[in-house]
């Protein structure tokens, strides 16, 4: 009788009666993973592949809060602004240099070129993710200068 009970208990434990908690991916770790799972594909679609509308419709919240001083709040305003921008710069390039993800925030360091032959722009986009969508955006944008005091690119 006892043997059967112990065997049943062991089987039940192995079958997932236990919830195992990984030491380094408790609540903070899983939020970071969830944020990365939104921001990485968003940047691939929007930046690398230049698919503005698809990227925004899929990954941005409708009432997205905008901190870029040249843009209005909201996803639809961002799409309109960026589609116009894309149309004016059909040969633009956008390359993510590094992506830093931490809890519900992410920073993307980007090298963008509007027109071939022009100096590239250095950009950091910061995103806050909430309920599986990008809810807030900040950025800092700087044209890269001709000369540098060090032998490294801005990237």
């Amino acid at each position, binding site marked *: 009788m006892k043997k*059967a*009970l*112990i065997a*049943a*208990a*062991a089987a*039940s*434990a192995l079958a997932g*009666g*236990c*919830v*195992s*908690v990984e*030491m*380094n991916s408790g609540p903070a770790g899983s939020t*970071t993973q969830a944020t990365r799972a939104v921001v990485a594909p968003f940047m691939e679609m929007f930046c690398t592949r230049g698919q503005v509308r698809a990227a925004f419709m899929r990954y941005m919240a409708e009432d997205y*809060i*905008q*901190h*870029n*001083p*040249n*843009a*209005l*709040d909201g996803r639809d305003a961002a799409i309109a602004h960026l589609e116009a921008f894309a149309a004016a710069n059909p040969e633009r390039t956008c390359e993510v240099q*590094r*992506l*830093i*993800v*931490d809890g519900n*925030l*992410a*920073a993307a*360091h980007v090298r963008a070129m509007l027109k071939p032959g022009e100096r590239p722009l*250095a*950009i*950091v986009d*910061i995103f806050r993710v909430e309920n599986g969508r990008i809810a807030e955006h*900040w950025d*800092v*944008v*700087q044209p*890269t*200068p001709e*000369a*540098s*005091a*060090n*032998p*490294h*690119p*801005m*990237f």
Partner: protein
Amino acid sequence: MKKLLAAAAAALSLAACVSIEANEAPAAAAPSQTEVTRGIVTPFSDLFCNQGKVREAFMTHVAPGYIQHNPVAADGRDTAIAALEGFRAASPQMTCEVKRIIVDGNLAAVHSHVKPTPEHRGFAVVDILRVENGMIVEHWDVIQPVPETSRNNNTMF
């Protein structure tokens, strides 16, 4: 009888569960790379930016051979200290406020607002730092003047 068995099995399985985890959990988990990086970049940013203590921040947390990607500065910690102390000396009312820090593995992004004087709109800055062997070894940044007008009411921060 079956119900009793099921209930007993469930109780035992929970007990077995707890004891399995207790035996497998390490005594103290080593901090992740992200937490190590956070433990360097947070005090560095507070000293350097919020408190304006350039030399102390750099001497404590930055490696001598610090690789510099900011185009107006040469490589190296001492060059950085000289340049940044120079800015502070030229603008004694300068303020710097860390808005958010984002840390991932050996990289961190620090978003801050720098104002040469209280009346100046200031600059939005993101510093990106790479940490190695307990020190900051590489730095990139992007700097933008805060414009006079904005199409939204949210500030750049």
